[in-house]
């Protein structure tokens, strides 16, 4: 069951540039378990979209099947949503994005939905550099079917059921890099200060932007033997750095330390400032990103933050050279060649 959020809001809630409060970006009341990491991610999405002053109806939120894929009901209530079939959200987004290049496509998926049943579609959406934000709410287990291991569960990690996982884990960030994603980040549902700017940067990025968010399952996978519990992730996270998102038109007021700070202008005119912490990582170099990920895997730490961004990314529409006017706005005059051409075709077939 989903519930409608009560309509009453504090009259003093801050408005964004469009005059909307944060409540205008919220959805129905969550039916996920109390303490579920996914709800924090929903909150981060709401905050990011509100702060960026995106018109709510200019976003389309799409998902597959699973706990994570239920989440879009719980944010952006004024946006169209699409709960597709299990593992097939990327193809639906691809079609939707081709039909209308002007909307922002927010895909939400889980580790089962992405790393198992939807691995093929995930890989190919990355490969096509589809212009979308792809958020994986990654908890290493199947919640709705009561706690089976997923393909992102680390070898040796155990859910509440107790049997350690015997297979190696799929690293979605590594996979996305291999497949050609042009923006790859990892975060933690419990670290909103890191997650919100990452979501903003992903939204501003033109191309396939993956954020793999470790999001503990409080019911089945938050036990001491798990590597996806709140405690384990807090203790073993290592951030690549921190980023600030500076929207277009906003004056840059903060002072940035030279050498360790990068400013990147995004295609929509906004910019992000990246403060590097990890000395070995060059987040604009794919080889460096891949080797840094491998290093952290070797040491058993979870690398979070922005891992890779291609500043010269060209998305699917640019590569295909499709019309600037969205395809769904073309009419008979644009699309139908008329009877005269058929007369010529007929003549050539006699």
């Amino acid at each position, binding site marked *: 069951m*989903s519930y409608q959020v009560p309509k009453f809001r504090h009259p003093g809630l801050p408005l964004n540039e469009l005059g909307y409060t944060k409540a205008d970006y919220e959805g*129905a009341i969550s039916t996920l378990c109390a303490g579920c990491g996914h709800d924090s991610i929903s909150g981060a999405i709401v905050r990011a979209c509100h702060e960026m002053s995106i018109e709510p109806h200019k976003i389309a939120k799409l998902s597959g099947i699973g706990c994570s894929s239920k989440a879009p009901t719980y944010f952006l209530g*004024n946006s169209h949503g699409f*709960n597709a079939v299990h593992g097939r959200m990327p193809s*639906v987004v691809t*079609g*939707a994005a081709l039909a209308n290049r002007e909307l922002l496509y927010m895909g939400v998926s889980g580790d089962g939905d992405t790393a198992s049943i939807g691995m093929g579609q995930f890989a190919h959406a990355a490969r096509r550099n589809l212009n979308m934000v792809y958020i994986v709410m990654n908890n290493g287990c199947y919640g709705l079917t009561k706690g089976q291991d997923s393909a992102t569960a680390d070898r040796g990690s155990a859910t509440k059921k107790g049997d350690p996982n015997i297979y190696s884990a799929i690293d979605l960030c590594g996979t996305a890099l291999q497949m050609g994603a042009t923006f790859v980040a990892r975060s933690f549902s419990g670290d909103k200060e890191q997650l919100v700017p990452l979501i903003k940067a992903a939204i501003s990025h033109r191309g396939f932007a993956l954020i793999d968010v470790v999001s503990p399952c409080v019911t089945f996978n938050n036990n001491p033997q798990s590597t996806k519990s709140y405690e384990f992730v807090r203790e073993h996270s290592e951030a690549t750095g921190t980023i600030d998102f500076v929207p277009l038109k906003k004056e840059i007021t903060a002072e940035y330390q030279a050498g360790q700070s990068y400013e990147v202008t995004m295609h929509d005119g906004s910019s992000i400032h990246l403060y590097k912490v990890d000395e070995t990582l060059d987040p604009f170099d794919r080889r460096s990103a891949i080797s840094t990920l491998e290093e952290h895997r070797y040491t058993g730490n979870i690398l979070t933050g922005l891992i890779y961004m291609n500043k010269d990314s060209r998305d699917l529409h640019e590569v295909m050279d499709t019309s600037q006017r969205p395809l769904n706005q073309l009419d008979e005059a644009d699309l139908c060649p008329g009877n005269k051409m058929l007369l010529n075709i007929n003549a050539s077939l*006699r």
Partner: protein
Amino acid sequence: MSRLESVNDFVIKFANVNGTGSASANNLFAKAIFRMGIPVSPKNIFPSNIQGLPTWYEVRINDRGYLGRRGGIDIALSVNPQSMAQDIREVEPGGYFIYDNTKPLDLRLLRDDVNIIGIPLTQICNEQYDDPRQRQLFKNVIYVGALAALLDMDFKVLTALVGDQFKGKKKLVLPNIHALELGHQYARTHLDCPIGIRVEQSDKVGDKILLDGNTALGLGALYGGATVAAWYPITPSTSVVEAFEKYAKRVRIDPGTGQRNYAIVQAEDELSAIGMAIGASWNGARAFTATSGPGVSLMSEFLGLAYFAEIPTVLFNVQRAGPSTGMPTRTQQSDILACAYASHGDTKQVLLFPSTPKECFDFGAMSFDLAERLQTPIILMTDLDLGMNDNMSEPLAWDDERKYDRGKVITAEQLESGVEFGRYLDVDGDAICYRTYPGTHPTKGAFFTRGTSRDEYAVYTEKGEAYEANMLRLLRKWDTINEHVPPPITHDCGRETDTAVLFFGTSEESSREALDSLAAENIFMNAMRVRAFPFNDEVQKFIERHKQVFVIEQNRDAQFRTLLMAEFEFGPDILKSVLCFDGTPISARNIRKQIKKHLNGDNVLPLHRKIASIRAGESQ
């Protein structure tokens, strides 16, 4: 020895090696006949192979305009030693076997009731050409030249065709005409020309065109306003999207910007292909995918979503012989049930059955109007025979005044003016509800599309009553759909009769011919061609008017008959089956034979004999 004699009425079969360039030469022959004003029906019988395996090209030439397979071969032209034994065996008594006699014919293959004609094709080529590729290519053209002499064809038509075929590649015209002349000259000098079978200029073609159904479908999608095509390559549907692309490249480039007013994605599999089509349709673009049997199996889950969530979807299914990989390059109508009830749970899908390239074009374009008007998948059911063979067809036409029917869509202005919006609210009483496109209005009209149960306002619910009400509305919607799909076409035989035939798609031509030949034996039957599912009430009334109705179809299990029984509750006492499922298009002789067998009372057979009798009929 007897020899078959006929003018403008015969079947010729070319036996070639796949990948040797024979297709264009054989095409040249068929098109030349067509240009002489004689109805022609060529059928490519090809292997799942790129090079080396036997391939055939069967051409029916018939002045009376019968375009289906007749059955039997009057002339075999064999340049493939691999298949020679089979090729000579198939020739009708009194028929002709033309072969490359550079190597002598194996004496064991000889038949004394067939006229054997040898042409030293390899020898001629070896003398004329040094380049091995040229030897191979021109061999085909040389036999077409020889045939022109043997059948008394108008040689000028052939040379003019070569000119047209190589327009823009002038260098190729003369060598091809030279090769034609080589064959023509050889036949006239060394052989008795013409043979008993020959052609004469006629006027039975009118303004018809020669076109394959897949190209017609691609054009239908183009004219129907499709902007997104997502597909995965699979024989025999591949050329649908290729045709769409070919014409889109010509006419869908924005003159101002040079950018494309279309998008084509070759997906990673069929699941993804239909997912993309659904995503694009959901977002207000006209989108389609094309596939064949195995693809339909993969798409089934999404078809259920599109049915239940009511998302316009256009799927072109070019059927081939299944199950599984089956015979991927042979024809069948065997996805009827898989498509009619595609997906788990209670589903019913709209099917369209075109039978000519003109109908492929018309129904192809219509599919987009229907999908958006009815908010459900439209599955257009064609097959390899119609899709990949050149079929004689009425010319294509488009009414320039025609507007696309975009269905029930609520705009921002309507939302602003306070129109009540519930995505699954049956406002008009026809069980079709209004939708909004994503991005319509900042605060009104957004909804959540889902494959889970929901209420009339698209809010998730597990309440039994709400689920049931929705499923019942979908059933009422089925009745509305019935009023929109193309009605059947009835042919009354003009005599008192209580028997009839019912068919669809590519069985039309052979059925028509079989009925004519039965009528010549004083067996009169009415006929109906069904063009869509849901079945129109007319279909029910037609069956009820008769004691016996033969359902003609190209699959083993009488799937169409099963569908009729399921929808109307007719019993096996009324509906009889005429089947063909050997992968070749059903022939007129086969239909006639099976119907006569039934009428003679042979239909009450023990099961093992029944199976044997089907087998006997299958390759006729």
